[in-house]
């Protein structure tokens, strides 16, 4: 029963008797499991360019996705027409994966009690758009004030208030409101002889709008400007194998690409990941402990409940270099005799869930960043990062370094440009030779793509030294 005292007891996204009828319809041809996912997503965005607010936009999308499973076979259908006949047709289409006829029994649903990992008092959708626009203006002003050579500033603010309801024939019923926001700034610095360098920074998460009182737009604008200016005059990155030191935070994308995707249970079940069948084996240096944690307070990848109705969890994936576990969604857990780790996520009601990461980070070590950098005679210090990508079969991963410097005799010296790191997941992690005590999460900007589905994620890493990493660049 819903608790009376909370305003959260407003009507569910879809009347529960109708949800039950849809589950029955999805089971009507003999499926073993059916699920109804209802989503209402209200989003707002504003864009600043050339010193002015170019546009403000807002919209709302509501729809349902119905899934029926028989064995390893999945039927999926979705609809944004919300009248009952259309919804029943959707459920019947999903049901077609099974080929029998049967009288589905009644479904008795009970709500899963959920903790909350996001402290969002006011839904972001209810915050006046003028306040969102002000953030952009402050960030723009701070970026331009940082240095005269900052000639272009592009700012973006985006938020969403995503309400979901998941119900299935196991009787689970879960509802959650997942607010998410992000403010980001890109700067272009104009140097001599047509040189252009860019900087990018931002922040956000599943946070109250007041987040930006502490993590100020001015600070975001200034940091983006700093990066662009700092890399003016950079020389081409040296090509070939080197020792690299990664600055803390967003560098956690290393884990996301080098190991995270390869531990997702769909690839494991199909045997297409190089980490399949390696449970209990040493896959990384002893210094490496990797955690995927959907319960980080306010984290961009945090979830009270996943998109299949299972609670978000903290999972140790690699402990002191030994592979401990994979990331399971409902289907892949069921088919391999495991339990879901609360990793079933989807972009929207138009997509069937997949096993995905939430916030993935490396546990801190005991070295100071100064010690780590000071110990490198010749190498590369990577301070800011772009995106990355991985091929989960051969384990090849890349990630872009947007701000990097040479390390010479333990000192950070000249900026270099156009660097990219490439490696093979387990080999790179075996070459981790120092882990800092300065654990840090990224500021809340990451979006992960898989099979055409984008979901928000977080990453984290303390300062880390990796030996013998191939650096792509054009320099000698």
């Amino acid at each position, binding site marked *: 029963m819903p608790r009376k005292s909370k305003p959260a007891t407003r009507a569910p996204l879809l009347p529960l008797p109708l949800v039950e009828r849809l589950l029955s319809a999805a089971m009507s041809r003999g499926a073993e499991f059916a699920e109804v996912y209802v989503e209402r997503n209200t989003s707002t965005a504003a864009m600043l360019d050339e010193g002015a607010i170019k546009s403000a936009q807002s919209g709302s999308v509501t729809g349902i996705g119905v899934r029926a499973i028989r064995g390893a076979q999945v039927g*999926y259908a979705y609809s944004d027409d919300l009248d009952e006949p259309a919804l029943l047709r959707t459920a019947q*289409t999903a049901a*077609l994966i099974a080929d029998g006829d049967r009288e589905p029994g009644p479904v008795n649903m009970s709500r899963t009690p959920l903790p909350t990992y996001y402290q969002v008092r006011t839904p972001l959708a209810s915050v006046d758009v003028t306040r969102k626009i002000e953030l952009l203006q402050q960030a723009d002003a701070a970026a331009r004030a940082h240095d005269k050579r900052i000639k*272009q500033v592009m700012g973006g603010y985006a938020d969403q208030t995503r309400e979901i309801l998941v119900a299935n024939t196991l009787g689970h019923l879960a509802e959650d409101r997942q607010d998410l926001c992000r403010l980001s700034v890109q700067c272009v610095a104009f140097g001599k002889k047509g040189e252009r360098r860019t900087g990018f920074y931002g922040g956000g998460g599943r946070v109250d709008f007041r987040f930006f009182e502490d993590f100020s737009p001015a600070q975001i604008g200034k940091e983006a400007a700093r990066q662009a200016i700092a890399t003016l005059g950079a020389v081409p990155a040296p090509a070939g194998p080197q020792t690299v030191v990664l600055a803390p935070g967003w560098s956690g994308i290393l884990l996301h690409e080098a190991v995270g995707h390869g531990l997702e249970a769909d690839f494991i079940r*199909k045997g*297409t990941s190089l980490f399949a069948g390696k449970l209990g084996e040493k896959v990384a240096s002893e210094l490496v402990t990797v955690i995927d944690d959907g319960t980080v307070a306010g984290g961009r990848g945090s979830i009270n409940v996943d998109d299949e109705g299972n609670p978000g969890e903290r999972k140790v994936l690699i402990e002191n270099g030994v592979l401990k576990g994979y990331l399971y969604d409902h289907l892949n857990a069921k088919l391999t005799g495991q339990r879901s780790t609360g990793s079933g996520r989807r972009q929207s009601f138009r997509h069937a869930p997949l096993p995905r990461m939430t916030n993935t980070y490396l546990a801190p070590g005991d070295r100071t960043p100064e010690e780590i950098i000071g110990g490198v005679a010749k190498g590369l210090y990577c301070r800011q990062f772009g995106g990355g*990508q991985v091929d989960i079969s051969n384990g090849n991963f890349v990630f872009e370094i947007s701000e990097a410097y040479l390390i010479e005799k333990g000192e950070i010296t000249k900026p270099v440009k156009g660097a*990219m790191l490439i490696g093979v997941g387990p080999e790179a992690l075996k070459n981790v030779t120092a882990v800092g005590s300065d654990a840090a999460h990224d500021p809340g900007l990451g979006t992960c793509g898989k099979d055409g589905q984008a979901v928000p994620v977080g990453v984290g890493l303390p300062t880390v030294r990796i030996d013998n990493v191939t650096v*792509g*660049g054009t320099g000698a």
Partner: protein
Amino acid sequence: MRPLPMPAGGARGERIETVNLLDACEHLVKLARKAGASEAEAYAERTRDASVRVRDGEVEELQQASSKGIGLRVITGQRLGFSYGTDLSKEGLKKIAETAVALAKGAAKDEANGLPRGRELGAAEPGEYDPAIEEISPEWKLQAAREAEKAARGADPRVRKFDSTGAGDFLSHSAIFSSHGARGEARASYAYVYCSPVAEADGQLQTASWSDTRRKLATLQRPEEVGRIAAQRAARMLGARKAKTQRVPVVFDPQMAASFIAGLSAAVNGLLVHKKSSFLGAQLGKRIASEGVTVVDDATLPHGIGTRPFDGEGVVSRRTAVIEDGVLTSFLYDATTARKADAASTSSASRAWSSLPSIGTSNLYLERGALKPEDIVKGVKNGLYVTAMLGRGADVVTGDYSRGANGIWIENGELTYPVQEVTVSGNLLEMLRGIDAVGDDLDFRASTVAPTIRFSELVVSGA
């Protein structure tokens, strides 16, 4: 294998409705004008998406759905607002109109804001719509996917695992209406088959994928062929190792050449150019690439995947040569950016109902050359043939280029051993000037395509 039953709601699945979109757009524009917009434009789209995925010859996932949405752009006092939604009821549209008009008040005045009008508007040939794709049955897709999977297994004994194999169809119907004369509808149909096998030997896994998408069912590549090519691409990578760091000639196969061209297309985006943030911004009219390099964006191409009668704001489709025989001849503009840059729209507005128009490409291609791809490889004494890449690569603001690469090493004009875990890097302007061979193997199998190309020298970074 049992036959698949028909989806609910019609003989061949739910028909894509064609009646209401334009009316909904017109109504929404009326509501926006009533709410105070001086200019208003609505864009709506309905899609039907149906696909089958197989594993070991059995259905793994059967998906079918249709969805719709509408977006509204308003301009009031030179300020821009935008809203969208999926509720096309009277109340739903009213809310969209009011939201868009209210949001415009927060945006800055910009005299470049304005909808296209007059002679710019209109419709060219609509592009292919194949009713046969409406009628594709689930059994047909299942059969196609099974054939692709079976052919992949048959092509190489080391192919035993699959990431996924499937087939599907996609139909779209869109409509646009504006207060300033835009009015039109467009339909598109697509059928596709794809296969992503994984080859395994000596503890190494290598994956590759191959797919084919066409607007006309009869021209779709045979599923067996899709599976066979995918398997061969995966199997030939087995045993891949790092190469040494060196400067060598590098050949991109047609898929990788297409992704190079796609990355480059951002550099001719009129907005980036206007903001002096493209490495090609100051090069208009100048030679930027070797002779024989011609890059065209053509929304009117017969059979093109990206062919359309008009762009995302109703401007009549056209062909734009971006690079002609090595000389940079045009940037790409939508109506707003064109006004800002004192240029004309090149009909390059891309559109989805949930977002504002932005500059994009339609059918973007590198014109074919005269050389056989084998001869391009033959001309390399020591170099890399690239068949797969990781990362985004081209940074058109700075002109830097660096991507992870997989491929085959070339020795004395022959493809030899497979290579992985290397990057290829260069400077985009130097790369363009360094294209010294263009193949004749151009196939319009995607919206951005290119034939095999060779760069005279790039940095390959590895061991």
